[in-house]
């Protein structure tokens, strides 16, 4: 027996089947236009989660959780009376009765129906494709299964070298697997790239250690010998792998359409018109399940455009006007795959009648660019970019807006030789230019938002939603917003914040020249208001650089960010980590034992850091002084891991132990670390010293790198690791010890005096007019006559060094601030640890709930 659900409402019932990105966007569109007043709305999702951001699915492997990717927590639906069901399958549409049959046997009437059922991954019917340890890459559940498997095995293979396949390969690589990609077509990304572009991309990806097989058909998958699977290829060769991930394209999820007799394309997909109506006018289909003009669109932006047009049409009666119709969508894409830039615009394959092509290829830096232009050379029809996407935004705007190409159109893909900016200023874009294709935001929309008071990129994002989809337009958006602000006469300010109309360097000079010793004095003389979290720590750092005062002095304490205030690094759960200084990474067995004992006594998580130190995690605020008491008694000093200051001087063992060492890198590293420890600088700084050119200490990726040579030391400056790695530049060769230290004194002090707030040495040097040569002129040739003062300033810092923890332990006032609560002896009950790999770590939210439930 089936029962029918009925409502106490007279509003027509609108049902959406599918709660992916497009289904959710559709509901947002309906709500934005007030459609929840016109309809009673119900949405069904098949997955256990409400809509989440599938475009950024891979970030689930790099630290984001389901909650971070969620597009809604349901509150939007609740507020507007939208009923939603997850884990719910609609099994049948009864079009005659206008009813849906649900998995639980219930029937549900509808007046209007929207199918947003999306697509499913195509798995080629290769014999053996159903073996264990084979996966697809579509849902959060898929990713959970892949991660669980990857933890047990060593080799992974992706079948399919398209966009998603390469992204999946990147994910496997990040999971630590030896990764291969097998593509049936003769090149990678066959849809977006031409032959040459595919070849360049293949070379780049192989350079990163991913094996790429193109033109390769898999015959069958059988039990492997050295791995879980063996893939036998058509040419007789084979590949052994533990995990197989199929990413061979998508197929529209059109089962309900088949079942209910809606018109469906020959190769699948629910046929729709320009309003996204199916062959039954009360049923709409949008997104990857819909077939428009015999095309399926496998990107999110066209899906959003369909959602908008279907919503407009559905609400036509209610709003008194029909919205925009769907007339196809641009399939241009820009991606960073495995660290390689790839872009494709319009007619990438040059198939248009009479078109002409420009190609630029650079085999040294591995880049390839192609422009397809109309027969008369006036319009851009398509483009292919591999290796450098900085050309993409400009090309896309020429293409989308049909802007006339300049006379020397080829300059658009040629590297800039004389530094003159090539391409299209945002000024030249027409008001109709589409800036964000995910949310269909035009330049005019942004201009309107700015005129209406959105005066920052963040505000404009909030108002227009631009750059909140795939995020690919963020750089362009910033340019447009800055341009609009400029047009309005709003100055783009270099002031440090609203309290000081000065740059960091201005403040440094004022403090130094006027002998200012406190924030209050500086504020009174040169600022206004009471300061904020931008200017306070910046001034705190400058005061420390110039005068080297104790940072927890009463008048300085409120300037310090939490890490500096408590001389430890705050972790996500509010506990702190502790890093004692271990100069050069050299440590005696006795001190090593002390660290182990302390960690054991306080139940701390212990890890060796990338900079050759030992980090103890999980100390509560009130434990910090007791722990430091013990460490200082054993001869340790604070490692300043919390401050913008010298962190570590990494080292190899050099000539003392190593067969190849040509100089004593260990001693030099210890001497340098002890000399500069405690120096407060605009950003954290790291050093390394290598004992020979084998570079085991990786000195060239540090702010200051020193490499031993037969003739002394080579000095490298202004490199860094991190998010945007940069190799240091060779500054001077074959230096003796004394000159080396002199040059480092000068470079570091010049940086500390002149860099911007939180500016790394690499960015600082890039910003110096004249760059490296100028820096050499100042430091080696004393062009500015500053060298004596730079050295004296550094000498002052060296001589006034104090261990901040030692000072703190001797100061009862300072110690008082380390109490967890001022009026209570207990601890923070939100700090909960669980054990993993024989150590403790912070419990996740879910674990906390379970633990609390058990206790309760």
């Amino acid at each position, binding site marked *: 027996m089936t029962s029918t659900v009925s409502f106490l409402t007279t509003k027509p019932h609108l049902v959406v089947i599918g709660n992916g990105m497009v289904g959710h966007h559709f509901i947002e569109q309906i709500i934005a236009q007030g459609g929840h007043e016109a309809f009673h709305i119900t949405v069904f999702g098949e997955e256990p989660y409400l809509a989440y951001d599938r475009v950024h699915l891979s970030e689930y492997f790099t630290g984001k959780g389901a909650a971070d990717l969620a597009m809604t927590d349901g509150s939007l639906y609740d507020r507007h009376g939208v009923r939603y069901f997850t884990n719910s399958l609609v099994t049948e549409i009864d079009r005659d009765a206008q009813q849906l049959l649900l998995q639980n046997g219930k029937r549900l009437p509808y007046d209007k129906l929207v199918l947003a059922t999306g697509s499913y991954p195509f798995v080629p019917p290769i014999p053996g494709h159903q073996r264990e340890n084979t996966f697809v890459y579509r849902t959060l559940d898929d990713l959970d299964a892949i991660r669980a498997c990857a933890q047990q095995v060593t080799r992974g293979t992706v079948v399919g070298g398209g966009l998603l396949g390469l992204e999946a390969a990147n994910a496997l690589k990040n999971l630590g697997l030896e990764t291969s990609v097998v593509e049936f077509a003769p090149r990678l990304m066959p849809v977006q790239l031409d032959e040459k572009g595919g070849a360049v991309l293949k070379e780049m990806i192989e350079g990163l250690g991913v094996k790429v097989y193109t033109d390769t058909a898999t015959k069958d998958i059988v039990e492997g010998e050295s791995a879980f699977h063996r893939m036998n290829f058509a040419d007789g060769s084979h590949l052994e792998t533990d995990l197989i991930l199929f990413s061979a394209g998508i197929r529209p999820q059109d089962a309900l359409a088949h079942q209910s007799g809606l018109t469906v394309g020959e190769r699948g997909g629910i046929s729709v018109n320009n309003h996204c109506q199916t062959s039954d006018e009360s049923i709409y289909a949008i997104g990857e399940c819909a077939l428009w003009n015999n095309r399926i669109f496998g990107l999110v932006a066209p899906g959003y455009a369909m959602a908008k047009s279907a919503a407009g049409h559905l609400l036509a009666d209610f709003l008194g006007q029909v919205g925009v119709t769907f007339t196809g969508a641009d399939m241009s894409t820009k991606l960073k795959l495995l660290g390689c830039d790839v872009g494709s615009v319009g007619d990438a394959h040059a198939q248009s009648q009479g078109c002409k092509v420009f190609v630029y290829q650079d085999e040294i830096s591995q880049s390839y660019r192609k422009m397809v232009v109309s027969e008369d050379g006036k319009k851009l029809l398509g483009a292919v970019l591999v290796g450098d996407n900085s050309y993409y935004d400009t090309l896309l705007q020429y293409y989308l807006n049909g802007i006339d190409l300049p006379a020397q159109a080829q300059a658009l893909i040629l590297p800039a030789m004389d530094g003159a900016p090539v391409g299209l200023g945002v000024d030249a874009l027409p008001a109709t230019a589409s800036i964000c294709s995910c949310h269909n935001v035009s330049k005019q929309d942004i201009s309107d938002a700015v005129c209406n008071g959105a005066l920052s990129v963040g505000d404009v994002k909030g108002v227009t939603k631009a750059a909140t989809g795939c995020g690919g337009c963020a750089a362009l958006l910033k340019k447009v917003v800055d341009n609009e602000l400029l047009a309005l006469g709003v100055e783009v300010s270099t002031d440090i914040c609203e309290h000081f109309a000065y740059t960091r360097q201005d403040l440094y000079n004022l403090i130094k020249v006027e002998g200012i010793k406190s924030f209050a004095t500086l504020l009174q003389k040169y600022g206004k208001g009471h300061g904020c979290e931008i200017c306070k720590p910046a001034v705190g750092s400058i005061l420390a650089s110039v005068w080297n005062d104790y940072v927890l002095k009463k008048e300085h304490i*409120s300037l310090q960010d939490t890490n500096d205030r408590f001389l430890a690094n705050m972790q*996500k759960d509010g506990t702190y980590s502790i890093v004692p200084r271990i100069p050069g990474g050299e440590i005696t067995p006795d001190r090593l034992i002390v660290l182990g004992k302390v960690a054991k006594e306080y139940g701390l998580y212990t890890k060796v850091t990338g900079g050759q130190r030992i980090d103890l995690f999980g100390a509560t605020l009130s434990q910090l002084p007791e722990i430091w008491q013990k460490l200082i008694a054993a001869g340790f000093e604070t490692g300043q891991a919390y401050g913008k200051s010298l962190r570590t001087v990494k080292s190899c063992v050099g000539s003392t132990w190593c067969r190849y060492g040509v100089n004593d890198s260990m001693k030099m590293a210890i001497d340098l670390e002890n000399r500069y420890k405690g120096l407060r600088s605009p950003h954290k700084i790291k050093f390394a010293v290598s004992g020979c050119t084998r570079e085991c200490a990786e000195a060239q990726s540090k702010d200051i790198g020193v490499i031993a040579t037969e003739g002394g030391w080579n000095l490298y400056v202004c490199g860094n690791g991190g998010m945007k790695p940069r190799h240091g530049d060779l500054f001077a060769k074959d230096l003796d010890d004394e000159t080396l230290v002199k040059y480092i004194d000068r470079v570091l002090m010049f940086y500390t005096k002149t860099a911007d707030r939180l500016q790394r040495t690499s960015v600082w040097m890039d910003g110096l007019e004249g760059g490296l040569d100028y820096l050499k002129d100042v430091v080696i040739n004393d062009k500015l006559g500053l060298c004596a003062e730079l050295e004296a300033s550094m000498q002052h810092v060296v001589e006034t060094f104090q261990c901040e923890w030692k000072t703190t332990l001797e100061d009862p006032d300072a110690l008082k601030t380390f109490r967890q*609560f*001022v*009026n209570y002896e207990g601890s923070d009950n939100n700090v909960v640890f669980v054990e993993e790999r024989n150590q403790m770590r912070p419990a996740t939210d879910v674990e906390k709930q379970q633990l609390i439930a058990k206790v309760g």
Partner: protein
Amino acid sequence: MTIQWKMVCKQSDLVSGAGVAAMVNGEQVALFYVPESEKKVYAIGNWDPVGKANVLSRGLVAHLKNEWVVASPLYKQHFVLASGQCLEEEVKVPYWEAKLEGDAVYIALH
């Protein structure tokens, strides 16, 4: 209705220009002592709903557009000391009336 004031700690327990944490009836309270401000002392919840940890008392006190706020030490969202409202997100933390009397710091129970 009379306001019920509860003494939480002494003024000397507070840190000028910064916050400390207190436990009041089982709830974590972040107390801020801002001598330049009109009210001098403020009390808001210690739980940062964005960073999900009891840390607001350890943030930096700032004065933005004529309002006293604390920047969370985790992800730097600002919470208004006089109301608990977050400036960047649609969240709010509890707020208590607070006052200094002699050497004692009081907050008004809800």
